[in-house]
């Protein structure tokens, strides 16, 4: 999330660390693709409804100023996750956010001025009511927003989400760039993974710190070089197929009864949250 992601490199080689991150990203993408194919409730809903509905609910969760209202949106998200069969994938996310945001807001319990609720034993630090309220707001809000955004991705195929962006008048050129970027991310991830795997297979003994830095830098530079070559090749291929700068997408979405129903549910929930979430 935010802040540098640092780890002690003495126990774990940086090559292992990078490989783990690359593999983790690819695994997440595969899992998201698989879960989008399940026969759950949200998987059958028109991607335009999901995109609009979830964005509306995220804005409602960010705008609401009452913990109860945000928690209500979270419960609605949880219900949708249960009906769509993606709760297991979301559990990891919830734990991650709880640990991350919890660590960030922990000091706020003691540093926010206000009415003292109780003192920590031994150290005597005072937990204040505004500190506790503020910490709860941030945790519940982060969990809710992340749940809704992830739910949208886990129940939709990426290509369908991209097409749905056109509903919001996003320029078609951006939609195409997003689609191509998504595809090339996996190609470049694979290339990067191959670098590190090949290096690990050929390595004997341990690298010293300067050699490790040299390897990280040269891998990044080679990847950049390959990216630029790839861009030229893709351009040539596009030209060969008749691309002249104008891009088109196929929009074959059709709204059905259940899509309208879900749209009504999203709008009603968001309207209620906007109204009840005011102070």
């Amino acid at each position, binding site marked *: 999330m935010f802040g540098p992601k*640092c780890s*002690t490199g003495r126990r774990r080689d940086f090559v292992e660390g*990078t490989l783990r991150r690359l593999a983790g990203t690819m695994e997440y993408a595969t899992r998201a693709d698989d879960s989008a194919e399940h026969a759950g409730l949200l998987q059958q809903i028109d991607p335009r409804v999901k995109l609009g509905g979830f*964005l509306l609910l995220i804005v409602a969760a960010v705008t609401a100023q009452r913990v109860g209202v945000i928690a209500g949106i979270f419960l609605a998200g949880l219900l949708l996750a249960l009906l769509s069969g993606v709760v297991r994938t979301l559990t990891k996310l919830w734990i991650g956010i709880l640990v991350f945001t919890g660590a960030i807001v922990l000091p706020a319990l003691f540093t926010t001025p206000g009415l003292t609720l109780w003192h920590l034993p031994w150290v005597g630090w005072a937990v204040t009511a505004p500190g506790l309220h503020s910490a709860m707001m941030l945790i519940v809000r982060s969990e809710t927003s992340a749940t809704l955004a992830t739910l949208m991705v886990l129940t939709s195929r*990426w290509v369908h989400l991209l097409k749905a962006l056109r509903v919001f008048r996003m320029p078609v050129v951006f939609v195409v760039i997003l689609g191509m970027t998504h595809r090339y991310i996996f190609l470049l*991830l694979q290339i990067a993974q191959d670098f590190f795997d090949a290096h690990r297979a050929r390595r004997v003994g341990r690298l010293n710190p300067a050699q490790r830095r040299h390897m990280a830098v040269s891998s990044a530079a080679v990847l*950049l070089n390959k990216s630029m070559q790839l861009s030229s090749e893709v*351009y040539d291929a596009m030209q060969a197929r008749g691309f002249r700068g104008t*891009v088109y997408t196929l929009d074959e979405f059709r709204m059905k009864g259940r899509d309208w129903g879900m749209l009504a549910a999203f709008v009603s929930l968001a309207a209620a949250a906007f109204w009840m979430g005011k102070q």
Partner: protein
Amino acid sequence: MHIPDGYLSPTTCATLYAASTPFWYTALKRVREKLSTRLVPLLSVCAAFSFVIMMFNVPLPGGTTGHAVGMGVTTIVLGPWASMLAISVALLIQAIFFGDGGITTFGANCFNMAIVGSLVSYFVYTTVSGRSGITSPRRVFAAALAGYIAINVAALCAGIEFGIQPIFFHDATGSPLYAPYSLGIAVPAMMLGHLTFAGLAECIISGGVIAWLQHSNVALLKATMPTDDLALGGGWRLTRPFWIGLAALMIATPLGLLAAGTAWGEWGPDDFEKPEVRQEMAAASNQIAPPEKVPSGMERLASTWTAPFPDYAPSFLKSASLGYILSAMMGIGLVIVVGLFGERVIRLGKPEVKPNMAS
């Protein structure tokens, strides 16, 4: 540095979306003009590179690792405008698909990393590298410094965005509704990690990749060379969105008159004597009453300078709204005059160089 949803208020998010929009517009227009049909494949692949580079762990002195954003490298290879777009696309995919960074905070993340990061990288790199040769070691130093400073300025922006939340967005009891830490905590907390680990990672990646390209593929470094004909400038046509935005903001300045309450910390010595203002001060300060007497230091220093238009209300204008607009016009005019004067001073004694900024 990827700010998740929920940490910034909707007002802050909307403001940063609005601040980023003219940059995206100008960048897209500029890049489209230069790249034409190459735009789609080049930006897609560069955004993918920007995404993947954020996954790289970089070994740092002391046995730790950090990860870079790659804003320095992307800017030097693509130029700042294309870099803004490539990093923005990468951030959008991270936000939507991988949940790294929020959707409501996407504008803020782009403002910090894609826009501020790219512009700072460009200006530091071009200023420090000057007219040195394409394979000069000075360019490696300039790239390393550009990456280090850019990521730290971006982190500072994020720290300020976090730090202003409890000041402006809290409930009636004073509980912060969003990021809970004040500027005094948020800025040092953000900067500590970036001045050390993340800054070093960005510095190593930027300097190292440029050094590698100097030996292996010099052509990729031409975009930000002084002789390149791809320029930052472009006259009125390219800067038009900024001027229109500025004019809109200027016209909207009287909206401040509608705001209820008092601007925290902007009180004058005479405000301490007015009971209604004292009440507002207490309400804005968590119900802590202001001192009975005017602080002596404030009283002494308040009289050292008398503003020609106190409270944005020139004495010769009766309408408060017109006073605000006139003050905004004068303020903007003064900033432009000072900027032009500064530019003239910096250029004194230097040979005429065509301004440059790639793509």
